[in-house]
């Protein structure tokens, strides 16, 4: 596989896995929670690095899962203490955690492979040379291998628990009345969001993660009113953004992950405009 190919595949894997799981955030009218988690996992990631002294996959995912669920949980707790609305509570939690993360990064820059800019827009260009070594074996480029695993896990999760995700997203009270706990499934979804985010974050930075959690889902939401086609379209738009973004970036010689985000935005606005025109006529 050529280095360019690795970059493209990495981009597609990020876009598709974030696009699929992110659609459920949109359906729950909780899209900004994706934004929040993409920011707040930073300290978890840094601490996992610092404590284990390595970039082992397992501690990284545990750290991310814990911080992701914690973000959702602390937000709930603060908004329950009265007088802080949920949106502000969410904002306070993720800005605080992200600030802590950035400070940790700026203090320990020498000891971890992250810097402040990298946190935002990653270094997808070099993914090919960052290898995943397990049991002394070179399994392949680290980012796409991990992301492929995550994508499979996400698809399995959505496939196996489709009915729970659907009913708790549409009518949480009714779900509760059937003993399908909306709260439990909310937190389970947060774990999967966090895992997907952390797997992507490392190689592509926060900005692309946020973009891909929201844009493919929002675009497909404009086009269909059926859930399954919506998921498939999400994956499609994610893939298109990754391809288009990559070529634009090589054309303009600029940040690849940001280009993918922008390209996802271009697709969204084109479809949005077409839909508006069609509707007014």
């Amino acid at each position: 596989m050529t280095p360019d190919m690795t970059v493209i595949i990495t981009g597609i894997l990020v876009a598709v896995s974030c696009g699929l799981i992110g659609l459920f955030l949109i359906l729950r009218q909780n899209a900004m929670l994706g934004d929040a988690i993409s920011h707040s996992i930073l300290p978890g990631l840094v601490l996992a690095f610092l404590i284990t002294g390595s970039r082992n996959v397992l501690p990284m995912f545990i750290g991310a899962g814990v911080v992701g669920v914690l973000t959702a949980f602390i937000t709930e707790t603060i908004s329950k203490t009265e007088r802080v609305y949920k949106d502000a509570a969410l904002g306070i939690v993720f800005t605080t955690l992200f600030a802590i993360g950035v400070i940790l990064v700026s203090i320990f820059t020498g000891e971890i492979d992250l810097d402040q800019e990298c946190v935002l827009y990653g270094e997808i260009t070099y993914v090919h040379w960052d290898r995943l070594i397990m049991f002394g074996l070179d399994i392949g480029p680290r980012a796409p291998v991990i992301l492929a695993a995550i994508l499979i896990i996400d698809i399995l999760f959505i496939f196996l628990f489709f009915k729970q995700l659907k009913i708790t997203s549409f009518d949480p009270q009714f779900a509760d009345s059937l003993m399908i706990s909306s709260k439990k499934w909310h937190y389970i979804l947060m774990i999967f969001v966090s895992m997907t985010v952390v797997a992507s974050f490392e190689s592509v930075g926060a900005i692309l993660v946020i973009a891909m959690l929201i844009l493919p889902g929002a675009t497909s939401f404009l086009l269909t009113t059926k859930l399954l086609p919506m998921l498939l379209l999400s994956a499609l738009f994610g893939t298109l953004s990754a391809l288009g973004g990559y070529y634009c970036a090589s054309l303009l010689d600029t940040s690849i992950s940001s280009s993918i985000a922008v390209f996802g935005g271009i697709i969204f606005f084109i479809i949005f405009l077409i839909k508006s025109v069609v509707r007014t006529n």
Partner: protein
Amino acid sequence: MELWDLTIRFFSMADANVRYVIFGSMLLGGAAGGLGTFAFLQRRSLVGDTVAHAALPGVAIAFLLTGEKNLLIILSGALFTSWIGVVLVNYIISRSKLKLDTALGIVLSVFFGIGIVLLSIIQKSGSGSQSGLDKFLFGQAAAISKNDVILLAIVGTALLAIMTSLYPKFKIIVFDPLFASASGLKTNFLQFLLSTLIVISVIIGLQAVGVVLMAALLFTPAAAARQWTDNLSKMIMLASVFGAASGILGAYISFLAPKFPTGPWIVIVVSFIFVTSILFAPKRGVISKMRLHLNNQRKTNREHILKALYKSGQKLNDWSKTYSISEIANFWSFAESKLKYGIRQLTRQGMMESINGRYKLTDIGISEGARVLRLHRLWELYLSKYLELPEDHLHRDAEDMEHIITPEIEARLVKLLDNPQYDPHNQEIPYTDGKVKS
């Protein structure tokens, strides 16, 4: 240099540059905190996050067009793209079924992406003075110069003046937009103006705090101020003070460690203020609520003791008999430690007295005991008369309410029930006047 010396140098403001930085950070923190209060109350806190991120392409475009780092031009660019961002958010919501949160996420990520694309193009084009632009990501308070402060001062004062003069109108559109339009206010225009002011307050903070975290300076001071007051004008002032203090402290930390970006430190400071407020604010802070709860539990315990002793005296129509602790414990299956603590408090308050290790009520204690029993029986009567609860359902409820009924509610109960003499179990309701003899 020593930490102490640096601290002195910073806060003495002997250095002109330090003066600019302090004054600038204070102004931008105060403006964002004050105006952010409106966004917070309209539950549009996260709009600030999108506004801040959407400023980045404007910063880059302004630089690309003029080729220089003139703050006024850069902030104008930022204002321009932020405004487009806000307009787009509203447009998306009004023209599709997507909700506010999704629209915010779309605009935030796409605009920020455009900003980064432009920044990396600028960086690769290698123009000399571009190095400063990436400071707009996480902020650098130390970069505030004298000219910048003049700009910040003009803009900040203008923001403050407009906010103060239109305060009554903003208040109405925040609390009751329907009433506002009904009473002939130009709600749309006012909302537009308010949003503009908020956008500007975000923009002037970008240099020091950075686009990524600027939103925190908008909603966190407001959330902290909310813990201390219910009054809007006080809340705005308090939020301004919190914002200004965070700005100054952030600048101070950045002065000590100039290599670090300022934004994250400012956020840490303002979040610390928030956590402190949640914990320690009087009345609604976590700590004072816990204390209130504990006090109420103790009061309930004391009143149970008073009532038990009163009732036992009532049987004999004589309250001069003394009891040992274990005898009192038997009246009410009191836990001994709680009982001892209650008696100690009651003795100190002059409601009980001890004679050779045995206890009895004082005159005040007797009338207090009578009051608790009276409230208990009044409540039972109220429930039975107005809700027709069966007799066996009255006691437990009254057992709680006897500690909560205030003198005003007591008076209303007495009036509503027409000076009742007997409770539903046909037991006498003790009134203090004339009935108590010691």
